[in-house]
């Protein structure tokens, strides 16, 4: 089980701020997780396709597509940051 969190534009488009997900056996990195979520279609497919930039963090550290994920991780997707 992993915890997924969505922020800002993604949270609004996907209609959810967070969810618990059981990782299928084949999904071992962020690229794999993103493909799994895009397969839901609709906003999931369009928001995560990369036409608009999406960033991700694993356990509160910025992460790349190749970053490994495993049970118990907290994984967040969000647009580029705009604070300060």
């Amino acid at each position, binding site marked *: 089980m992993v915890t997924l969190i969505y922020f800002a*534009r993604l949270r609004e488009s996907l209609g959810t701020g967070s969810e618990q997900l059981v990782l299928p056996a084949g999904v071992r990195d962020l690229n794999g997780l993103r493909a799994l979520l895009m397969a839901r279609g609709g906003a999931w497919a369009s928001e995560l396709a990369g036409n608009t*930039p999406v960033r991700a963090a694993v356990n*509160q*550290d*910025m992460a790349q597509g190749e970053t490994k994920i495993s049970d118990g991780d907290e994984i967040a997707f969000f647009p580029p940051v*705009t*604070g300060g």
Partner: protein
Amino acid sequence: MPVRIQSEDFDAGREIASLRAGNAQVGAVTAFVGVVRDMNDGSVVADMELEHYPGMTEKAIAEIIEQAKSRWNIFDVMVVHRVGHLKPTDQIVLVVVSSAHRGDAFEACEFVMDYLKTRAPFWKKEQTPHGARWVESRASDDVAAARWRQKD
């Protein structure tokens, strides 16, 4: 704790005083205050909502502060960042740096702001006459952050 995320306003003068309190070797303090403007990207901004990623925000800023301390000869850094509902002329962010000499204090303060702008998980949503919109990240902020990249 050198990082505070809060909805309340802050008092820059008090934070400056408290950062250097008890350290008579401090000769220079620099401070940056970011403020909500009434115009952004050509639209009037009525107010805004600042969202953040609790936990990661504090961690990301603490890491930026540690990096500043390893690169410049500075004593302390304090960052206060507001979240929630803000309107034009409201203070958003405060960075304060103390050091013995001014050169280090200026550079470290600007570094912290440039990195915060590109690495700390905050998102602004503005209310404009044309409706609400999520603020887009700026290429100029990436350029500002890239200036500090170190040669190996």
